[in-house]
Each structure stands twice: as structure tokens, then as C-alpha cells.
């Protein structure tokens, strides 16, 4: 098996993009993988019905952290909420560019679950 710790993953893990607090955030959500001890916080600022800014903070493994970094980058690029709502688990794997085993799937999709929760809160 090829290692899942490709250069890109290690880079996003060591230097996660959009990492930290987001002052003045409109919505802040927390999501955790209880069985791993991964915790992730995601904050979003909206701007005229679109994503204005997004940041995340996490204590977790390389996969969940890299996934948070990659996902927030993508969200910032797309901006349109309806399109962002369409992001699926498979898209996370594509972004990571690695083979994700069933046991690591919850690491790979943790930031996405936080994002979906945040957008649900906004619509609700």
C-alpha cells in the first residue's frame, strides 16, 4: 500500500490554511470524532448571502487537519452557499488525493460534517 502521508497531506497538516479564530464570525460550530479524540471548530462569516470568510481550528490527526485545510480553501474559492452544500464525502477524498480506508473515513469527513452543520444552523 502506498503511504497516505503524501507530501501534500503533510504540508497541509503542518501548515494548515485558514487555521485559527475568526473574530466576528456569524456561526461557530464544533464537531468531534469521539472514538478518535479529534475535535474541530469551524467559524464562518457571511457576506451578502455568500461565504465571506471561513476558518477552522482542530486538535486531530494529519488526515482530519489536512481535510480541514483543503476544505476551507475550496469553500473560500466557491463562495456560493448552494454549491458548497453539494460537497460530498467523495469530494473530500478527491481533495485529499489519497485512498482512505473505512476506519479513516470519519477523519477525512470531520470538517465536512462541521461545515454541513454550520450551514444547517444558518438556514434554520
Amino acid at each position: 500500500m502506498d503511504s497516505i502521508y503524501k507530501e501534500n497531506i503533510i504540508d497541509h497538516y503542518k501548515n494548515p490554511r485558514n487555521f485559527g479564530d475568526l473574530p466576528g464570525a456569524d456561526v461557530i460550530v464544533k464537531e468531534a470524532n469521539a472514538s478518535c479524540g479529534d475535535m474541530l471548530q469551524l467559524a464562518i462569516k457571511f457576506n451578502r448571502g455568500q461565504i465571506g470568510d471561513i476558518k477552522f481550528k482542530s486538535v486531530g490527526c494529519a488526515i482530519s487537519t489536512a481535510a480541514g485545510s483543503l476544505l476551507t480553501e475550496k469553500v473560500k474559492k466557491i463562495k456560493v452557499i448552494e454549491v458548497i452544500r453539494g460537497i460530498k464525502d467523495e469530494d473530500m477524498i478527491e481533495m485529499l488525493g489519497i485512498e482512505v480506508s473505512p476506519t479513516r473515513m470519519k477523519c477525512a469527513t470531520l470538517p465536512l460534517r462541521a461545515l454541513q452543520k454550520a450551514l444547517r444552523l444558518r438556514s434554520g
Partner: protein
Amino acid sequence: MNNVKSDFPILSRKINGQPLVYLDNAATTQKPRQVIEVIRDYYENHNANVHRGIHTLGDESTRMYQRAREKVADFVGASDPNELVFVRNTTEGINLVAYAWGMANVGKGDVIVTTEMEHHSNLVPWQELAKRVGARVEYVAVNQEGELDLDSLEKKLELKPKLLALVHVSNFLGTINPVKKIATLAKKNGTKVLIDGAQAVPQMPVNVSELGCDFYAFSGHKMYGPMGIGGLWVKREVLEEMQPFMTGGGTISEVHTVGTVFAGLPDRFDAGTPNVAGAVGLAAAVEYLEKIGMQNVRAHEKELTAYAVKKLKSIKSIRIYGPRNLEERGGLVAFSVEGIHAHDVAQVLDDEGIAVRSGHHCTMPMHEKLGLAATVRASFGIYNTKEEVDKLIEGLGKVKKVFHG
């Protein structure tokens, strides 16, 4: 202990092109051919439902099931095979006590004492029981060495709890608790004692009659037996007072539309068709362990653990948890690698064919207390070797290389 490895077919597997180094024995052990063959033989030659079968197969199956109960009961030191209830695993055994004994004996305002180092299986059933009956759960503190704080224990026992539920050997810290001494203390106030023996029975001699406890639960799959079978030993006088946990076929002596008379021991706790093949397989595992001798099992795993602790300590970025005194430590070592999440450590080790566990090992309260989210755990079995510990150490070198270049 040199040639046991060849008894375990799975250990000749290659993982990611590397020979399997299986260090996840606290989660489940592998099964020797001697156990697998007995299960196959049961299904190929003897399978029939137990009890009431007059035909030859029914008779054979019933005898095999009874012999299995005798074998396993004797192995853990029960004075009477009927004190042993077959359950699926330790968790089911503990739940059986929580329902069948707890609901009848623990009431509003009562105290149940357990400890901070428990596996969730010996914690959640008591929280749930407390919720149902209006009792409360108190926790004995664990000190920095990973041992139970005996002052804290004494204070909790002064509350005259109905039950003290504690682990014999911790599956995270590895701590071997002085359960006999603790049971003696608890008895002074009439407190009943339940021991979670999931990790103890596979690695050291255990004699439930000598421990002075009332309930002792263990799992077959952690002692080289099959999954789905385990034992709950209950002191006879306590078991006799207990009503069935589950009811139905097998648990009764008479059923009329106006009521039911429950069967004696142990049938009262054998609702439905039991896991006969599992019981027979567990008895085979017991025979296998008896041949090796539990003293030898303990000596072997102690030596490996001492070796692993020494090697791990020599790596600066590694922190080890649990007692430093190896007399108080079972055959496992949990640790963390600075700056690298436990899952990532386990994943890189898997690339090298090394199986370790990562996570909180179902001991979240203890991890929380130590300020940890997750740890890596290497746990040893009869087939592990020092060379395999060396491979683990080499593997950890690779982990650091992947993450720190």
C-alpha cells in the same frame, strides 16, 4: 513459549508486504489452530441443540456444553461450575449484573462506586442503573502513577456503597489492581464487589474464589478463544437470589398461562439456544493456556513489557503512561509520540505490518484526566517476541521520519 507462533495460522500473514506483528492483544487475541479445529469439529460432527434432545447428537452437544462450562469454571477457580454463566463478553456480563442484581438491590439514594480508570463497559452500565433507580455513582481517583488512590477508595467505601465495580487489569494504563485487598476492605461494609477481568484472565492466574469478590466477568476472545462467548462468575449465594436477566426458552422449569417457575442454576440465565460452539471453543482455549501454564504466560508478557518500556523510554519524544513498577503492570504499554496524533502513528506502523491500537481505548474519563485525546497502545500476547518489539521501535523511527522529515 518459542514455538507457539506456529499454532496461530493468521500470524503467517503478510500485511502490506511485511510479516504481521500483532500487538493489539488487549483488544482481541488471535486464535490457535487447536481452538479453530475444535469449533470446526463441533459443527462437522456434533452440532445439535442442547438439552431435551434424546437423539445422539443432542446428547453429545449437551455433554460438550456441560464439559465446557466445567472446564472454564475450573480455570477461573469457581468452586462450582454452576456459578459460571455463559455470556457473550465482559460487557454483557456486567450488564447482566446491572439488570438482574442491580435493579433488585440498588435503590433511591444508594451509592455505586467505580473508578476513574474503568473501561466504559464497567462505567456506563452503572451510570444507567443509577439513572433508572435514582442512585448515584462515585469514582475512586487514580494517582499520577496510574494507581488507584487508596485514600480516595477508603473515603468512597465509607459511603457504604451497595456495589464496588472495578477493573482487575486496566486496558489503558496496564495497572494491576490489588483486587483481593480492595475486596476485603469493601466487605467490611457489606459492599458487593464486581471485577472486570477482561484483561486479567488472559494473562495471569486468576482464582475468583480466593479474590473475595461477588461477580467476576471476562471475555473468551481476549484469551485466545472465539468471539461471542465469555463468562460471568457469580458467588453461589448471590446468584441463587438473582432472577433471570432475559427470559424465554431454557430459563424455565414450568410455564403455565398463569405464571412461570424459573429453572435452577445455571439454566435460569441461559435464555434461548446458547453459543455451544463458542463455549466449546473457549474450553479449548482454556486447555491451550493450561498447557502453557498461566505463570509462564505472565512471566513471558512481563519480560516483553519490561523490554518494550525500556526501549520506548530511550526515545525522547515518547511519553509512557501507567505504573513504572513492572510488578504492577500487565502486558501492555500505552504511549504518545510528541506532536503526532495516535492515529497517524498507528497508520504508519500499519504500513510496516505492525498492528497497534490508537484512540482512547474506551477509557475516556482517564484520558480526560491526563489531558489526552488519544494514545497508542501496544499489548502483548503469548506469541510475541523481543524481535517484534524491536520492529515496533524501528517503526516508530519511521513515524518520526514521515512527520518530521
